[in-house]
């Protein structure tokens, strides 16, 4: 390639690359750097902290710091020290579009039990292609940590693609990053602790909360109590924050409606109202029950978080399915080693357990990576132990099969390609029995999001049709499988990808036989 072409002549080589600068990735990078490893952290955001400790842009940074922002600073500061000492470098504002194993690299193909890197072989294993604000860059690394967190799950309902309907977790980004609510009068719906957090956050911006609808009932929250009681300190911290959010809501007269779901979102070009109605224990709408229409200009709705698996699927790591931890995630050992030698996963991308666990797990995985790289300064790793609290909280937002079962035939499931539930059912009638066959039959998952948004629901709809009773639903999900991982990981502007070039820069292969 030419010097002024899109691809630099030589890729940037590091010992360890970390994708994602959230709690898991940043913690791991700090540990790796302290152990003397040459580490590069890559993140889409301009500053480290990830989604959970999402930093406001510098211009908005003068406000009072929230607890999340303070925790983010404590992570960002050591990472900043490493940057200054050239130990850990950060590629911020950078989109990873391709991750691949280097052909002939040590370690062999994926498969078998999770295992670490062979320390004696110093050749790079992985190539990571990224788009930085300055242009495309290729990075090669011996060891790679994927700490890319989660994708928000929304179970479709009529009108869910109406402008003004936004994700619950997405709303937290808006609140933290920009200090703004998605509308002037916001309905909040879905499942899990984010409901209270978002409702309180919306009120804090001065906007109105039109309603809070929780799929769960008080009984579901109480069911988490035994787990909480086993870890009283951790539970108390979480409960105190949750209570604070609810107190803020109650002071303004906002009460949660339990066992309530969104029946429909109404409006054409812009959301005008949501229709709320009761749901049963399984999350399904109660047929014939009275509904209520709530006028609003925004709906923040989310039904849990799923581990982001696009990179580990692309790398063909082995994945497992556990509904309580968000669905599919890569199989790892206690130090985050996947079934692909040299590839590690930490944080919510390895099963949703929340930010506190991600911080611990990231540090543990960082140590394991350092030791596997035979870094001189690496102490023996102590495995992060999964606490029951995290699993109990994650379970509150698990994907409920009854909710997908209740999706009406004309409701769009794949919003990129406009594929309805009826079209998915017709594909099953035509013999589609795995998720990738469904993709070919319907274009479901072929759009710009590559099925990140619809995948969990499309797979659940297939599984509901193919399962031998509800007891078989998780086994059916495993049979239905996951989307095949594909590059690019995010849509890539062709202009940025190819840069300036002349025809001589294109390595046109030899002619095909005539």
């Amino acid at each position, binding site marked *: 390639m030419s010097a002024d072409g899109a691809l630099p002549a030589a890729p940037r080589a590091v010992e360890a690359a970390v994708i994602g600068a959230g709690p898991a990735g940043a913690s791991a990078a700090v540990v790796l750097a302290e152990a003397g490893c040459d580490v590069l952290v890559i993140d889409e955001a301009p500053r480290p902290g990830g989604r959970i400790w999402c930093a406001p842009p510098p211009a908005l940074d003068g406000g009072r710091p929230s607890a999340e922002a303070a925790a983010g600073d404590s992570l960002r500061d050591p990472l900043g020290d490493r940057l200054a000492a050239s130990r850990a470098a950060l590629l911020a504002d950078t989109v990873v579009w391709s991750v*691949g194993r280097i052909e002939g690299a040590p370690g062999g193909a994926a498969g078998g039990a999770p295992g670490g890197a062979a320390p004696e072989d110093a050749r790079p294993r992985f190539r990571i292609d990224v788009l930085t604000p300055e242009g495309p860059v290729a990075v090669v690394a011996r060891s790679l940590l994927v700490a890319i967190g989660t994708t928000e799950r929304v179970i479709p309902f009529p009108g869910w693609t109406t402008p003004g309907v936004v994700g619950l977790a997405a709303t937290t980004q808006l609140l933290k990053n920009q200090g703004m609510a998605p509308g002037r009068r916001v309905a909040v719906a879905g499942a899990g602790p984010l409901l209270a957090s978002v409702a309180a956050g919306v009120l804090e911006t001065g906007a109105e909360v039109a309603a809070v609808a929780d799929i769960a009932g008080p009984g579901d929250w109480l069911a988490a109590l035994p787990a909480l009681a086993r870890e009283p300190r951790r539970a108390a911290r979480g409960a105190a924050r949750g209570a604070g959010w609810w107190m803020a809501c109650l002071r303004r007269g906002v009460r949660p409606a339990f066992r309530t779901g969104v029946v429909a979102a109404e409006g054409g070009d812009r959301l005008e109202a949501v229709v709320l109605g009761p749901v049963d224990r399984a999350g399904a709408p109660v047929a014939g029950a009275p509904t209520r229409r709530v006028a609003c200009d925004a709906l923040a709705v989310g039904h849990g978080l799923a581990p982001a698996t696009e990179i580990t699927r692309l790398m063909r790591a082995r994945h497992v399915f556990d509904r309580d931890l968000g669905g599919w995630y890569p199989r790892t050992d206690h130090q985050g080693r996947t079934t692909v030698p040299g590839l590690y996963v930490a944080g919510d991308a390895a099963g949703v357990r929340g930010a506190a666990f991600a911080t611990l797990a990231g540090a543990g995985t960082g140590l394991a990576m350092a030791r596997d790289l035979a870094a001189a300064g690496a102490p023996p790793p102590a495995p992060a132990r999964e606490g029951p609290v995290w699993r109990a909280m994650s379970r509150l937002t698990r994907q409920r099969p009854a909710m997908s079962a209740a999706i009406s035939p004309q409701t769009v499931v794949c919003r990129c390609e406009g594929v309805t539930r009826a079209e998915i059912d017709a594909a099953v009638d035509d013999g*589609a029995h795995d998720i990738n066959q469904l993709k070919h039959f319907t274009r479901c998952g072929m759009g710009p999001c590559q099925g990140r948004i619809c995948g969990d629901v499309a797979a659940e709809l297939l599984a509901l049709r193919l399962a031998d009773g509800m007891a078989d639903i998780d086994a059916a999900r495993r049979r239905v499988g996951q989307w095949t991982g594909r590059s690019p990981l995010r849509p890539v502007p*062709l202009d940025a990808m190819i840069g300036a070039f002349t025809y001589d820069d294109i390595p046109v292969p030899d002619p095909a036989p*005539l």
Partner: protein
Amino acid sequence: MSAGHDPAAPAGRVDAVIVGGGIHGCTLALFLARGGMSVALVERGPLCREASGTNAGTLTMQMTRVALIPYALAGHAMWANARAWLGHDVGTVVCDGLSLAFTQREAEILTYRAGRRCEAGAPIELISPAQARTIEPGLSTHPILAAHCPVDGYASAYQTGRAYRRALLEAGVTLYEGLAASDIEPASGGHAVRLADGRRIVGTRLALCGGVWLEPMLGWLGVHLPIKVLVNQVAVTERMPPVMRTVIGIASGLLSLKQFANGSVVIGGGWQGIGDRERGGEALRPEALVGNVRLACHAIPAMRSGRLVRAWAGLEAETADAMPAVGPVPGVDNAFVCGSVHSGYTSGLYIARLLAERMLGREPALPLFPIDRLLDRGPGTAAAAE
């Protein structure tokens, strides 16, 4: 399908058992069934999900080998009329095709190749860049010569599995999907295909249509036919406003470019990714992807404003002389092979249909491509007509 309690018991006895459910195996099964035979089709995954479902879908004379032009013309007509004979839509679009030359050397290659293909019956003519831009207003100013062919176009490869599945069931073909064949053994008056679950299907006739897996399949019959595995990269953009209305290639044959009705542009041409017979198309070479996309944007500059949303690699089978392996298996009665048709999407349907004629005891309209040449005299010899 009743297997009884004995796993070794035949799952069924049919006139013909086909192993491999790509467009070759599916077309063969369909025409055998319509010809009156009872047919079983065995496919280890879903139908048309390997090369037949992952290629760029180009239907063109300008990437077809000269000796295959008559087959490709007939195959193109079949694709164009798929709704009529298959009964289901595979998204075929017939449009103009342009092959471009950007350098003097490419102009020489294009002149020679267009001439040879024209002699073989392809309606290709050389045109000036200005004429090319009247046919394709989206074209850049870089080409110095173009070859135009009105018999061109594309199918939606991903739609073929569903269409064939319906057609095969309507024709009464018994499908064994998601079941790999693990071996073939002689059975009284035929061949027994052993399935992964232990069942056996006995066919009076056997046809192997396994693409790049033909080499191990023929090994079951004691025949060694080396099959090279190409790992072709394909990429697709998000939906864009119209940027082109033709299929674009280049003189060397290493580009295929077209915009589908939904606005997405598919970029192919056989740039090599990473993979093999065991792993499939495992990964892309980012530098090859960039090269392929640069070539595309060199031809159609408006593509630069688009975004790439998905790319993948699919396997293509190639024999030592890059000519098809289609005909009887030497030394094995009533066993046939069908595959390795170079750039074979255009002609593959027709070539499989010819083999169906032969298996039905009729004389095919055009010669097959027996594999004796590849077994006896080794690589590099010209294709021998049957």
